[in-house]
């Protein structure tokens, strides 16, 4: 590609005052060539003040929209400012910035449109609890059943997205627990998905957004979301003109 690709790192943060500084400073240090955007999802702690004081590039949502609404803000920003690739990174420091290049590479080489950083390919690092892995396995199988594509780490929020999906997600991105549905949605739009092995860390501070009590709600909601998403696309997948 002759024109240099514009890459945006999107860091969604909800009440991450303990992690956000370390995450953003780390990204700024290792990837000064990329732009970044912190999306403060209506935090009630000092996340916004930290961003302002440190002079970060950030947007601040006036109300809490949840991860889906927050990330969509990032996609809308990416679209408005003509970025070619947008990368989702959690603001809690789970995602290791060292894997960014590997995550983007398939898109730069034109081999994929949408890449997902996956814990379960090399099975190294933080693997999550057994019950949660079982849930992820179930959703992974459900997605395979619905669209025929096997993605192992369907709940990973560490992703790189090319321009076609940026455009689609800016218009329409799933809410609440969006990760598995976004995969199905991209597959249905004939995007080429690739999983890239990464190592994730456990959380150092704060609570994960999905606790044990919410797990049942999570599973039911995501399962229904996936089925409805699949139905809304009709029997056949959309055609894609640029690929044969």
């Amino acid at each position, binding site marked *: 590609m002759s024109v240099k690709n514009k890459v945006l790192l999107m860091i969604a943060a909800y009440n991450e005052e303990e992690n956000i500084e370390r995450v953003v400073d780390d990204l700024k240090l290792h990837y000064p060539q990329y732009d970044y955007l912190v*999306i403060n999802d209506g935090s009630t702690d000092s996340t916004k003040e930290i961003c302002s004081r440190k002079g970060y*590039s*950030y*947007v*601040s*949502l*006036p*109300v809490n*929209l949840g991860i889906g*609404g927050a990330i*969509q*803000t990032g996609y*809308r*920003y990416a679209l*408005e400012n003509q970025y070619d690739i947008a990368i989702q990174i959690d603001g809690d420091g789970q995602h290791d910035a060292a894997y960014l290049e590997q995550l983007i590479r398939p898109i730069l080489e034109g081999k994929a449109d949408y890449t997902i950083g996956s814990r379960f390919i090399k099975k190294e690092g933080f693997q999550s609890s057994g019950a949660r892995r079982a849930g992820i396995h179930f959703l992974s199988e459900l997605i395979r059943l619905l669209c025929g594509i096997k993605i192992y780490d369907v709940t990973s929020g560490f992703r790189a997205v090319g321009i076609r999906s940026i455009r689609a997600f800016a218009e329409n991105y799933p*809410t609440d627990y969006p990760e598995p549905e976004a995969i199905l949605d991209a597959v249905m739009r004939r995007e080429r998905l690739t999983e890239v092995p990464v190592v994730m860390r456990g959380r150092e501070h704060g609570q994960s957004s999905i606790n044990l009590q919410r797990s049942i709600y999570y599973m039911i909601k995501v399962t229904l979301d996936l089925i409805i998403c699949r139905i809304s696309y009709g029997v056949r997948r959309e055609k894609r003109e640029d690929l044969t």
Partner: protein
Amino acid sequence: MMNIPIRLRTALLAAIILFFVIVLYFLKRRRLTLKYSLLWLLTGTVMLVLVAFPELMMFLSRLIGTQSIMNTLYLLILAFVIILLMMLTSIVSGQTERIRRLAQSNALLEKRIRELEEEFREKAGKS
């Protein structure tokens, strides 16, 4: 009992008139937008027609096989309430979507204003 007693008809009529008065009052005070109150007005009108012409109720009862006209009335009211609730849920969903879009636009605009202000301040400082 395939008939509506005159006393019940009067009571129903009074209730429907009260219902219309309340809806019109809210409309006058602009606490209801006409778009959403249309549904309420339609409900009231159908009720009024049914009370005015009980033959319709009897026909309906025979059609769906209810034992008495009262059961048909209850069934109708329940159906109206369910339809209204579904429409309300649909309206709430639409508004959630709009609020999300607005919050996002607001955040994006706020960033642009912030950057413009900084730029402006820098320029003002130089000159």
